[in-house]
């Protein structure tokens, strides 16, 4: 029972993180039909930026997270401006190859700057609620909810799930209620028509990149709190998140959120009950099966919802 509960929580937390990354893929694809391979690397850089800010400067943790979001948003827009925008009218394969090139460049830049070593946030830099531990002598639990069988549920996990839900809700409202959200939906339906209606398509695309990248940065920090920060994290988590976007129907934001949760749970339960070594493979299998059997994803793709 306890194993089940732990895997469930683990899956939900992973799923929340995947959902945060997946919306970055899906929003960009919804508008310019490009698989932004570099998104996983932006997520990785978000974690590194925050780590550097908290270790090298006296900034508090939350300020570092915010700055990292801003930094990634700018980076996302910059990548779009430098690499993707000149290819807007080129064949789609060219843009896809460019995206792979950007991803390769950023990954190896991170390797060059910070080596392939795994890092974590030092304990004194984290806010108290993220420092869960058990006192081995008294069995007292700090910053975590004790579960039966001596397991604990750290506040970090609860926080990540809540944060993912809040951000997803905010994004949903943004897309459906604000003017820029309306512009994004219009561009997703037809960039040409949107342009004719006076919407500055390029600006909307920039904003889309910025929002996706900022959410990616948050996800990066969350992974850094729970697991480790290393250059290849963007690649592994990025693929799982992309699988989530495909599963939810690429271009569909709500679908990406649900897809993230499903992939997270599938990995947790598959890894826990079937084989731990194949943890990564579940996302690949789901992705391939969805593309072969139902390319529009589980939740279809009504153009009205796409953005």
């Amino acid at each position, binding site marked *: 029972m306890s194993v089940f509960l732990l895997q469930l929580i683990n899956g939900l937390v992973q799923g929340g993180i995947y959902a945060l990354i997946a919306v970055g893929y899906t929003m960009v694809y919804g508008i310019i039909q490009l698989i932004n391979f570099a998104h996983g690397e932006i997520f990785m850089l978000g974690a590194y930026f925050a780590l550097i800010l908290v270790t090298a400067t006296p900034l508090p943790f939350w300020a570092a997270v915010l700055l990292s979001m801003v930094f990634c948003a700018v980076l996302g827009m910059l990548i779009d401006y430098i690499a993707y925008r000149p290819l807007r009218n080129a064949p789609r394969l060219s843009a896809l190859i*460019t995206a792979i090139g950007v991803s*390769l460049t950023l990954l*190896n830049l991170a390797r060059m700057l910070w080596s392939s070593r795994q890092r974590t946030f030092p304990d004194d830099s984290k806010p108290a609620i993220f420092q869960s531990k058990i006192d081995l002598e008294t069995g007292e639990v700090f910053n975590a909810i004790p579960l039966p069988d001596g397991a604990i549920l750290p506040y970090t996990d609860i926080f990540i799930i809540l944060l993912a839900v809040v951000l997803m809700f905010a994004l949903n409202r943004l897309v459906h209620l604000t003017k820029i959200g309306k512009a994004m939906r219009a561009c997703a339906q037809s960039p040409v028509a949107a342009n004719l209606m006076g919407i500055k398509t390029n600006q909307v695309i920039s904003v889309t990149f910025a929002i996706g990248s900022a959410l990616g940065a948050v996800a990066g920090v969350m992974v850094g709190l729970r697991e480790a920060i290393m250059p290849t994290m963007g690649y592994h988590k990025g693929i799982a998140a992309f699988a989530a976007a495909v599963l939810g129907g690429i271009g569909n934001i709500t679908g990406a959120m649900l897809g993230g949760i499903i992939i997270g749970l599938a990995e947790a339960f598959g890894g826990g009950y079937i084989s731990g070594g*194949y943890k990564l493979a579940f996302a*690949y299998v789901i992705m*391939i099966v969805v593309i072969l059997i139902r390319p529009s994803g589980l939740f279809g793709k009504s153009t009205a919802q796409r953005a």
Partner: protein
Amino acid sequence: MQNKLTPKNIILLLIVCFIPLLLFGIDLLARLLFDNFGIDLPIPGASSILRILALTGLYVLLAVGLNIVCGYTGLLDLGYVGFYLVGGYTVGLLMTRFGFSYWIALPLAVLNGAFWGLLRGVPTLRLTGDYFAIVTFGFAELLYQIVKNEEWLIGNVNGMVNDIPRASIFGIELDQNLYHYYHILILIALVVFVSYRLQHSRVGRAWVAIREDEQAAESMGINISRYKSLAFAVSAAIGALGGAFFTQLQSNLAVEVFEFWESILILCMVVLGGMGNIRGAIIGGIIIGSLGEVLRIVLGFNPQLADARFLIFGIILILLMRYRPDGLVFRKT
């Protein structure tokens, strides 16, 4: 590739064949200089250069193979390394477990590669663009995970296969870099010949027709499924051939060799040369393949930098797509 053996091509061929002789000549000269005059020329030995050349040749082979799917049918294959893996492990396991001779294991590996190419190709026949790319990527990653995890199949953790015997021919064991060089040269000649003959046949024209407009090609009576499957099988078979040769170059296998980035490296070669162009694939393979090896050696003083040498290939991809989307070698076929 010219159609005939023009004098220019014959000279080129002779140069390529006699490179080892030249290298050993330089080696001899350097030794004479050192023995008689005490001058120590700072040049690497012929054997190590031949090894780099053999490895570069391997990449040329793979680039020519990938060119068939990427260039002729215009589909982006992000999982080519999967077939390379299939070939490598087919030969590795057949030779170490069942004591097969290399010359029997090699054709079996090629057949196995073609089989996997069809296995992947048939379900993906109707996919295009991004979706095809993603499925090919996922397929290669799955193979990677299987080799990494299934100890009963490989017999060792992390896909390690050790002490793969060398092939021998007329009782001579092919264990020198000199032999590897000629070995890969013959394989490249074979693959280029096949690829060239295919390109200039009915099949090649059908492929290009499919690439340019699938619907128009179909209405002209081209059997799309058949020609696409053929492209997948031939391309995969060449990838497996590369893997088979790799076992001879390294004599052991580890799954890390077959990471996703290797696919991208090969793609980079094809893109550099210009997709759909055999000569381009060869030149791209030579440039990128040797650049990778030279960088690994030059940056060897700092493992962190050597680790990050793929940075250059990322930048090359971005710049090429921006300024030379048809590659450095023109004349699109």
